[in-house]
C-alpha cells in the first residue's frame, strides 16, 4: 500500500507539472485516526498529502461531477468560443470508475475532461462496523498491518481482522479494480467474493410479502429525510431533485410515512442500471437505514432482466434507453 501511495504521489505530481490536469481529487489523511477524507490538489507540491488505504471511503466520482458542474456553470456566462476546458484528475478504484462510466454514458462530462488514475482496491473499512467491533471504544491511533487493524483505543489496545470490518459492499465487490483508467497505479487487487453479492437479496426475496413490507416500513420509519444519501450518491446529480420540485409536487412534506416511503422508493428506483454499490449512501446515513438491501435488488433485476451491470462497460447503453426484443424477459406481462 505504501508503494502505491508513493507511485500515486509521483504520478499526481507529474500530471500537475505537465499540466495534464488542472486539479486532482484524491484522499488525504482524515483528522480522526483511521480515517481518510477527499482532497483537491492543484499544486504539485501538495501531492504529498495523497493517501490510498482502507479508510478511503467516499466515491470520488461525486466530487468529479460537482467540480465539472461548477466549472460548466461558471463558463455559462463566457462566450462559447472563449470557454476554457478544465481537466480533472481523479484517484479511482473500481466503483469510482463505474460511476465515472455512468457519468460518461450520461454525458455529464467528456472523456477528455477526466484523467483517471486507477488504483486497486481491497475494500474499505465500515466505520460503524469497526466501532461496533471494538465495542464503541474511541480510537486514539491505529494502523493496518498484515490484514489486521491494530488500534490504541480508549479501552486499551485492540486488534481486528480487516476482512471482518470491511463494508458490506466491499465484501462481495465484483469490480474492485478500475474498469477504465488513463494510468493504473500498482497491480490489480485480488478478487473479493462477488458470488455472494445477491445472497442477502435472495434471502429477502424468500420472505413473505407481509414480512418484506414490514421490513421496508421499519427501515423507512428510521429515515429522517436528511437527504444525506442523495448528497453522497454519485448517481444523484439532478439539478433539482424530484423531492424538491413543485408544479407538480411529487412528494408530500408532511408527517405521513407514505411520503418518506415514496421518496425512498423513487430514489431507489432511479438507480436502475445506475447503482455501482459503492456504499456511499450507506456510510453517510445517520440513521443506519438498510438501503443496500433494496439497492442490490435493483442491481440484481437489472442484471437478470437485461444482462446489465451498472457502469461495467464503456460500450453499454443505459439499460433504460433501449429494449431487446429477443432477450428481455416478458414474464411480467399479464395475459388474461
Amino acid at each position: 500500500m505504501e508503494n502505491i501511495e508513493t507511485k500515486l504521489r509521483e504520478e499526481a505530481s507529474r500530471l500537475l507539472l505537465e499540466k495534464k490536469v488542472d486539479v486532482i481529487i484524491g484522499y488525504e489523511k482524515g483528522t480522526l485516526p483511521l480515517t481518510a477524507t477527499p482532497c483537491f490538489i492543484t499544486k504539485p507540491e501538495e501531492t504529498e498529502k495523497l493517501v490510498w488505504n482502507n479508510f478511503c471511503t467516499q466515491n470520488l466520482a461525486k466530487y468529479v461531477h460537482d467540480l465539472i458542474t461548477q466549472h460548466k456553470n461558471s463558463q455559462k456566462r463566457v462566450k462559447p468560443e472563449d470557454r476554457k476546458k478544465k481537466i480533472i484528475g481523479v484517484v479511482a478504484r473500481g466503483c469510482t470508475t463505474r460511476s465515472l462510466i455512468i457519468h460518461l454514458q450520461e454525458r455529464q462530462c467528456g472523456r477528455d475532461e477526466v484523467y483517471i488514475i486507477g488504483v486497486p482496491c481491497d475494500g474499505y473499512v465500515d466505520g460503524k462496523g469497526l466501532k461496533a467491533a471494538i465495542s464503541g471504544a474511541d480510537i486514539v491511533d491505529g494502523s493496518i498491518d498484515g490484514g489486521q487493524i491494530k488500534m490504541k483505543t480508549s479501552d486499551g489496545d485492540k486488534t481486528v481482522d480487516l476482512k471482518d470490518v470491511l463494508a458490506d459492499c466491499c465484501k462481495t465487490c465484483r469490480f474492485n479494480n478500475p474498469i477504465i483508467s488513463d494510468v493504473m497505479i500498482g497491480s490489480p487487487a485480488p478478487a473479493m467474493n462477488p458470488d455472494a453479492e445477491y445472497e442477502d437479496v435472495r434471502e429477502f426475496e424468500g420472505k413473505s410479502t407481509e414480512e418484506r413490507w414490514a421490513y421496508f416500513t421499519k427501515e423507512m420509519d428510521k429515515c429522517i429525510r436528511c437527504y444525506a444519501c442523495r448528497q453522497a450518491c454519485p448517481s444523484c446529480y439532478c439539478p433539482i431533485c424530484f423531492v424538491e420540485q413543485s408544479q407538480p409536487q411529487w412528494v408530500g412534506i408532511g408527517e405521513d410515512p407514505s411520503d418518506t416511503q415514496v421518496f425512498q422508493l423513487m430514489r431507489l428506483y432511479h438507480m436502475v442500471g445506475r447503482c455501482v454499490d459503492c456504499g456511499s449512501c450507506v456510510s453517510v446515513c445517520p440513521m443506519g437505514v438498510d438501503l443496500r438491501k433494496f439497492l442490490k435488488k435493483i442491481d440484481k433485476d437489472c442484471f437478470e432482466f437485461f444482462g446489465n451491470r451498472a457502469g461495467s462497460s464503456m460500450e453499454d447503453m443505459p439499460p433504460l434507453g433501449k429494449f431487446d426484443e429477443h432477450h428481455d424477459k416478458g414474464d411480467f406481462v399479464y395475459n388474461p
Partner: protein
Amino acid sequence: MLKDNEKIGAVMVVGSGIAGIQASLDLANSGMKVYLVENGISIGGVMAQLDKTFPTNDCSACILSPKLVEVGRHPNVEIKTQRTVDSVEGEPGKFKVKMTSAPRYVNLDKCTGCGDCAKVCPVTVKDEFNGNLSERKAIYRHFPQAIPSGFAIDKLGTSPCKAHCPTHISVQGYVALIAKGKFKEALKLIKQDNPFPIVCGRVCNHPCETACMRGKVDDPIDIMHLKQFVADLDLNSDTRYIPEKKESKGKKVAVVGAGPSGLTCAYYLAIEGYDVDVFEALPVAGGWLAVGIPEYRLPKNVLKAEIKVIEELGVKIHLNKRVGKDISFDKLKSDYSAIFIGCGTMKSSKLNIPGEEMQGVVHGVDYLMKVNLGEKVRLGDKVAVIGGGNVAMDAVRTAVRTGSKEVFILYRRTRAEMPASPEEIEEAIEEGIEMKFLVAPKRIVGKDGKVTGVECTRMELGEPDASGRRRPVEIKGSEFIVECDAIVPAIGQEADLSFITKESGVSINKWNNVDFDKVTFATNVPGIFTGGDVSTGPQTVVKAVYSGKEAAKSIDRYLRGEDMKAGREKDWTKDLADKADVSDVAKVPREKYPLMKPEDRKTNFKEVGLGFSEAQAIAEASRCLSCGICSECYQCVEACIAKAIDHDMKVEEETIEVGAIIASPGFELFDPRLRGEYGYGIYKNVVSAIQFERILSASGPFFGHVQRISDGKEPKKIAFIQCVGSRDVSCGNSWCSSVCCMYATKEAIIGKEHAKGLEPTIFYMDIRAHGKDFDRFVNRAKDEYGIRYIRSMPSSIKELQQSNNLLITYVNQDGTLAEEEFDMVVLSIGLMPPQEAKQLAANLGIELEEHGFCKTSLENPVQTSRPGVFVCGAFGGPKDIPETVMEASAAAACAEGLLASRRGTMITPVQNPEEKDMRGQPVRTGVFVCHCGINIGGVVDVPAVRDYAATLPTVVYAADNLFTCSQDTAVKMKEVIEEQNLTRVVVASCSPRTHEGLFQENCEKAGLNRYLFEMANIRDQDSWVHMHEPEAATAKAKDLLRMAVAKAQYLKPLKPGQLPVNHQALIIGGGLAGMTAALSLADQGFASFVVEKEDRLGGNYNHLYKTLEGLDTRAHLKNLLDKIYKNPLITVVTSAEIKKIEGYIGNYKTTVQSKDGEKVFEHGVVIVAIGAYENKPKEYLYGQNAAVKTQRELETMIYEKDAKLAAVKNVVMIQCVGSRDKERPYCSRYCCSEAIKNALELKAADPSRDITIIYRDIRTFAFKEDYYKKARELNVKFISYEEDRKPEVVASGDRVEVRVFDPILNEDVNVPADLLALSVGVVPNPENVTIGNMLKVSTNQDGFFLEAHVKLRPVDFATDGVFMCGMAHSPKFSDESITQANAAVSRACMILTLDYIQAEGKTAYVNKERCSACGLCEINCPYSAIQVNVAEGCAEVNAVLCKGCGVCTASCRMNAVDLNGFNNEEVLAQIYNINEG
C-alpha cells in the same frame, strides 16, 4: 391544351382502398381539393379486412385506422360513398365527371354510429366483411372503425311479397319480426298499411304468397296465417294496439258504407285527427266481411273486435242508416268537408236465364247475407251452386252447414281456372262437395213455380280470353238436366248507387261503378272520394283496404290544400328483389296450418282454421329468404333517436369538375369455387385465405380463435395451397398474384401464435419472397415456427366423412405420389382485376391490358392510356401494400404536376375568431354531459352526473344534451362559452379518438384555444360496457368526469410553433430515381439540387438496355438527361461529395464538395436516391474463367452485338449468386426477370441454343410470370437447387461445366456451358451509413435505408423532411424506382407547398433548470426531435419534429422534459382524483 387558369385544382380519386386513401391524403395535404369516390359504403378496402401485415406482423387495423380518421376529417377531402362513375368528358386539367349515387337510407349528417338500429333490425345476412363466416344485420357498417362511421341499409329492392300485396304492407318486414319473436312490432307494422289483419289473416287472396320467392325453392311462406297469428295475439291480449292519434284537425268526413274500404279510410283519417262518421245501411258493420263471408271462415266476434279498434279511435259508425233513404247524399255534402263512398256491391248479378224468378233460386249474395244476419234459410237436400269464385265456395259450404245433404258446384271451366282461392276449394272438397266442371246453366226447370232442376250444357275450353283464362265454349247438343231443390247462382255482384243524385254531379260509368282517379281515388267532384268494390266492381278485401287507405291520404291532402297526386305514383314492379339465385337454398317444408277435421266442421259454423302456435309461427317465418335484404320493417326508424334513417332516399345523379382523375378501384379476389378440385364451398373446412385472415382477426367471426368451420374445434394440421387462381392458364389467370406466398406465410405464423399446437404446411410452386425483408420472414417461418414448405401443387382434396378432415393428394418432386390428412385447408386465392374493371375503364375512357387490369405506360407505371387519368394500386396489376402506397403517392405527384398552378384554389381555409386572452383569467369550466340518445342516458343517470359536475371545483356551468355532437348543440356550446366566459370545456360523452377534434373546433369557433378542452369517455368505456350495472356505470361516469375536470384546470392554451420552409430540395444521387424526382419536382415548380458522386448522371440505369417488358431504356435515359439539363429549376453537381448536412425539415444547409470547390445549398427537404451496387461475385470462377459473366455483362454483349456470342450454344445461368445466403439473406428481386430477359433474347437470336437456368425459386411476380412461361415454352430448362446444395462450376478449357443436383431426376447432372451467366444481385450502397448519420436516419439489418413504416410509409424516413427512393430503399426494377421517385416527390411536396410548417400542439418542452443534459431523452426519442445542446447544457425540443409521444418525458428522472396536453400536473390531477375528496 388548357391554359393554367382554366384548370381545376381538384382531383377525383376513384376507389378508396389504401391506394385511394394515400393518394387523397397526399393531394389534400399539398393544397388540392379531393373527391374520394367509393362504390361501397365505407372506405378502407381489403386492408381493413386484414388481420396483420407482413413482414412485421403489424396489426392492419391499427395502422390503417389513423389514415381512415385523417382522410375522414380532412377539410380538403370529400368522401363520396356508394357512387359509380358514369362518364368522363373533357381534357387533362378540366374533366366533367358524371356519377350516380345509390341511396344509403341513412343520413350521415345525423347518424352518430351508435348502432341502436342494428340492434333492432330483424334481418340477418352473411357478413361479407367476415368472409361470410358470421352474420350482420341489414342495417350495418363493415367494421366499427369504418369511415364514414354511419350505418347503411342494405336493400336489394322491394321484396316481391310487398310489391305484390295490394296494400304494400312490408310483408318481409313483419315476417322477419315474427321470426325474431317481435309479435307486437309485427302487428304495428301491418297496421301501418292495413287495419284489418284479423280479417286479412283469414280471408285474403294473398298475392304476396303467389309472388313469394320461397315458392321457387319449395312452398311460399304462409304469410296470411302469420298475419293471423300476430293479429290474434293482439286480439287476445289485455291491451290492444291502438295507434297514436294526431291532434284534432277539427274537420268532419263522412264515409258511406262500413265495409273494408270505408272503415279503412275512416281508420287512417281518424289517426290523422279527423272526425269521421260512417253511415251503414245494414244493421252490422263490416260490409261484405260481415254479411258475405261465412262464420266458419271469419267468425263474427273476431270481425267485431277488429272494428272495435277503429271505433276506439273515435270513428262513429251509424248502423241502419241508409244514405239516400235515412239521410240524403246532399246533406252529407253540406255537413261534411269530404265524403268517401265505399258502399260496395251488395246486389247479386243475375244469371239472366229463363226460370230465374222461380222459388228455390236464391242468389249467393242474398243467401249468405241472410245466413250471416242470423236468418234460418233452408234450401232443401240437393243444392246446386253456380260459379267458381269465393262467394260460390262460401255459398256451397254454408249450404252444407245449413243441413243440405247433397251440395255441388256447377262451373263452366275447370278447377284450374276457378277464381276462388285454392285452399277454399280444397277445404270444400274435403267437406264432400262435388264439383261439376265444364258445365253451364241454360235454363232453370221447375214445377209449380218451384225449382226441380237446371238444364245445363257441357263446355270445352277454347282460346284464352282477356283474363288469360281459356274461354269456355259450348258443346252443341250436349244439354242435360241436373236435378236439385235449390239453385244458388253466385256469379257476380253489383253496386246499388241509387242514392247518388244526378245533382251531385258524381260520374258513374257504364259498369255502374263510380268513376275515380286510379292514384288518388278522387271522383270527378272535389271533396268526394271513392274506393272498394263500388269503384272497381267486386274485388278482394285487400284491394278495398288499399283504396280506403289511399283515399284517406288524398282526403288529408285535399283538406290541407296540398297537391293530392304529388309523388304518389309508384311502379312497384321496378326494383323488384326477385333476381336472387335460390338454387343453393336448402328445402324446408312449409309449416302445416292446423285445421279442424272435416268431419268435425261440416256440421257447424265454427272457424275451420285453428291458427299457428308460436313455435310454428316462428318456424314458418324463419323460412323467409329475405329477398330484399332490408325488410322495411322500420324498426330502425323507431330506434333511431337522431332521426337519421330515411327509407325513401332515391338514386341520384351528379356532375363534378376536376382537373385530374386517379383510378384506384383495387382488385377482386379469385373465386375458389372455380377450382372445383379443392372443394371450396362444399367441404366446410376448406376456407379461402381472406376467410382465414378474418378467422385470425381479434375482431373477426371467432374473435381470433383459430377454429374449423365444421365443428368449431381448433385444428392441428392445416394446409395452405398456393396459386389458387394464379399462374393458372386453365382459369385464365396467367399472372402471379405477387402477395400470396407472403400472406400465407404470415397467416401460418399468426395462426401458430394464436394456436400453439398448429402445424401449418404450405404447398407451393415457388416461394416468392421478393420484397424487402421478406426472405428473412420466410426463414423465420421455417426455422423459428417450424412451418413446413412443400414444393408441390396438390391435385385434389377429398373430405373424410366422419371427421370432416381433408385428404390431400400431391406429387413429390421426384414424381412419387403422396397423401396426407389435414384438419383444415386454406386456399391462397389470387388477385383479379376488379369486377367493375371493364365498365369503369369504359366510363373513364382508359384502356385495359390483356389480363383485364389497367394498361399503364412503361415509362411511368401510374400513367393510363388517357392523359390526366392516373392509376395506382392493384388495378394496375397485383401488388403488395408498400408498392400500392408508393404508386398512390406517385399518382398524386403526377396529378399535382398537371395542376400545380391551381393548388389551393378549390379549398377554403377555416376562419376562426381571435382567441380570448387568457391572462389573469380564473379557471371557469363548463361541463356538457351527453345522453347520446339512449346510448349513455339509457344506462348512466345523466342528470345525476350533470348535477354532480356542477359541484366540482372550477365548474361554473353544467348541462346535459341529447346529442352533444349535433349541429344545434355545437351552436349552443359556442353561445354558452361566450355567455359564461368559460375558460375550460369538458365534454362527457364518447371517445376523444373520434370526437375530440369536433369539440375542439367548437371551442375555436367561440374564441377558446382548442387545447383548453378535455373529454370523459362515458359511452364507449362506460355505458356500453356496463349495460347491466347502471349504478356502477353512473358512479364511474362521475369519477371519469371528476378526473377530466381536474385535469382541465391545468390545461394550457397552446400555440403550435411555426417554422418557415425553404422551397427547394436536395436530391442525393443522380441515378434513375434521382433524375425522375428532380424532373417531377420541376413539374410542380420546385427547384432541386442533384448531387451525384460519379462524373455522369444515370447510375445503374447506364448499364441497362431494355426492360423485360420491352422499354428501350437507352432512349429513355437520353430523353431524361435532355430534359434535366434543359430545366432551369434543376442544378446538377457531378463528381460531388456531401460534406455536411445541417438543419432539419424546412431548413437544411448542405455543404457539397465538387471539382469546382465547396458549395452550400439551402433547401427544405432531402430526397435520398443514392442507389445500390451490383454484387461482385467471388464464387463460380468469376474473374478466373472468361466464360463466366454477370447477367449485366451478358446483357451488354447481347445488345452491343458482341461477336463472341455467335459461337455460344450452351448457356447456363445461376441465380441467387450472393443473394439469399448467410451473408446477404435477402432477395435481389430483379435477377430472375433479368435472367429470363437475357435467355429470351439469346433464344430469339438463335433458337438452337441450349439454355439452362439453375434457380432457387423463380420470382417472376405479377405479369412477369408470362415471360417465365414463354421461356419454358421456348424450352429454356429450369433446374432448382437448395441453399445447402449449390451447383459447382469447373473449368473445362475456355468453357465451364456446371454440376448440379436435379431434384426431378433425383441425381447430379453435368451441364456444359459456353457461357455461364451469374445473377449476382444487389448490395447496398456502403455510403448509406455515412449519409444516414448526417441525416440522423438509420438502415436496416441488410444495410438498406429503413423507412418510417414498411407498409404505409415506404418513402418516408422516421425523421420528417427526409425521403428515399430507388435502390437505396431496397433492390427494385427500374419502373419501380420511377414510381418511388414520384412518390418521394409527392411526399416532399406536402412540405414544399407550405409557407410554414405547423408543429403539433401537444409537443414536449424542456424545463432548463431541471435538465442535466444526460441525453436519455435523446436516445429514447424515435423521431430525433429532442437533442442535448452541449453548449447550453440542456436538452432542446424541435417542436416541428416532435410527435408528442412523450417517451422523452418518462425517461427523464429530473422531470425536466414534460409534454403539453399530457403534462405531469395534468396526469397527476387525474390520478389524484380517482377517488372523491
